[in-house]
């Protein structure tokens, strides 16, 4: 399986929970990409593709890890979820997603969200190949970084392990 080239990592000690990553994620995925329109006019409004986890003084934003072994892709009933072989990102084809929420149960990070108004699952798409995702670009504190993580695999995303040697 293609390994993601880059992932968004959280430099947790310096995250102060300002929610700007959330705001800019939502803006990036809006139709207008205009701050005022996106938040005050668009309906239904797009959901942010990440969540802020907060328990003072610990804050961090959590998003899709683009797992090497992606349960969500394997579980998707319609074939809407797939891996973009260029960026390594796990992406949802909204044309094909029917909002059955099967992927949501299989994500160990709880990072796929049900958009109940549009009947679509939504998740981080690494801003579709952008050089720097919006959340990282607008983080005022460098609490988010976009880095090559090599073959670093989340512990909880294993699928077929243990592999017999």
């Amino acid at each position, binding site marked *: *399986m293609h390994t993601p080239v880059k*992932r968004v*990592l*959280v*430099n*947790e*000690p310096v995250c102060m929970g300002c929610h700007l990553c959330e705001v800019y994620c939502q803006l990036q995925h809006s139709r207008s990409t205009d701050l005022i329109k996106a938040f005050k006019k668009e309906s239904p409004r797009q959901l942010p593709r990440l*969540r802020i*986890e*907060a*328990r003072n003084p*610990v804050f*961090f934003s*959590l*998003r899709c*890890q683009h797992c090497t072994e992606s*349960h969500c892709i*394997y*579980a998707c*009933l*319609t*074939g809407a979820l797939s891996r973009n072989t260029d960026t390594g990102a796990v992406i949802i084809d909204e*044309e*094909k997603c*029917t*909002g*059955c*929420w*099967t992927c*949501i*149960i*299989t*994500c*160990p*990070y*709880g*990072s*796929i*969200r*049900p958009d*109940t108004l549009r009947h679509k699952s939504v998740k981080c798409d690494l801003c579709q190949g952008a050089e720097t995702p919006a959340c990282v670009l607008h983080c005022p504190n460098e609490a988010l*970084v976009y*880095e090559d*993580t090599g073959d*670093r*695999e*989340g*512990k*909880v*995303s*294993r*699928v*077929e*392990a*243990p*592999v*017999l*040697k």
Partner: protein
Amino acid sequence: MTEARHNHYLIIGNSAGGIGAAEAIRECDKTSPITIVSDEPYPAYSRPLISEYLATKCPLERMLYRPPDFYEKSGIRLLSGRTAVRIDIKDQTAELEDGAEINWDKLLLATGGSPIVPPIDGRKSTGVFTFTTLADARAIDKFIKKGMRAVVIGGGLIGVSVTEALERRGLKVTIVEMKDRILNTILDETASAIAAETLEKNGVKIITNHTVTEINSEFTTDRIHAVTLDDSRGISCEVVIIAIGVRPRTEIASEAGIRVNRGIVVNRTMMTSHPGIYACGDVVEAYDFIHGENRVTPIWPNAYLGGRVAGFNMAGRPTVYAGGTALNSIKYFGMAITSAGVFAPVDSTGEVVTTKNGEVYRKLILKNGRLSGFIFCGDIERSGIIYGLMRDQVNVAGYKQTLIADEFSYISLPEPVWRERLASTFKPQPVEAETVKVEALR
């Protein structure tokens, strides 16, 4: 007659399991020939989407499970509309209905399930259908008209899916369920009641504790006009859908001498009793990590995963199936319910924690502090975190109430737990000098 072409991999079945295997094979082996045989006349499509097809008449292209160029790009030969009728283990060949013989080095049986049709009088009349394939959905689509009355026999997943689709098409539907509640194999009483209430609010009539004993049709036209229940009650209808369940299509395996119990028995590498022959999907009895034994769990995600493991092993990459279990996400008339594992304790050592507020209902079933099942109704967004803890059999005894709290999120877990589980999302921190010194002193 055996064809001259040498097929390294032969896959019988072209749905989630077969595709899962083919994709895994191509990750390890880009060149050896793969042939997929399917008795259905189209490329792989999303079987669960047949209810969407029936409800909205969505075009076939939208139902394709993989892009149209999938087979060509992956170097897979698809023989669609061809039924495999026999396999010869000694000669390593499969015989198709049209007489063709296809050889193999590695074989995968991903033949799925077929609907159970009980011997009810009148089951062959015009207007009686099953609902597991696109062909079924197409036949129903052609037959139904707005305003017709339908009786759905069986209140399980398939029965309720077809009910919603028919209601959306303007039919009046009555579900007849033999047991005391609908969805009784995946939900407990409370969640079943929530689902039933949602259906009833949307115009569905539900009759429980009864069976259909006869389907009555006009003598001259053979068109049905009613069903008779076991208490002699008649229900007028023009359409009947038999949705009692599916059984594994094990015939070609058992005739070849492959070990079959309720489904084809496979080990943790998804191999059958015969080396070189693998099986996956709705046709198998594969490892269930909650029950600790092999079980038939005919659901899409398990089919794909089992196929993936089979494919790796067939291609020479030794891989073990971590196991699956019952896992369902259902959404009828907007009401979302997720469930996994068992919905009630299997013995007296089990423990249950629940919370309910209107239609939001959460239930965990634990054994020895570890999750063996859960049900989330109404608010399902965080159920993936719960399923992850269940899959990894994390001991959650110390914080089980937290898991069903309204405001539950990752950070509600004890810090060592979320730090470990989210390790991949954090930028590794430099080890502080002080820590190094302390370590050195030890």
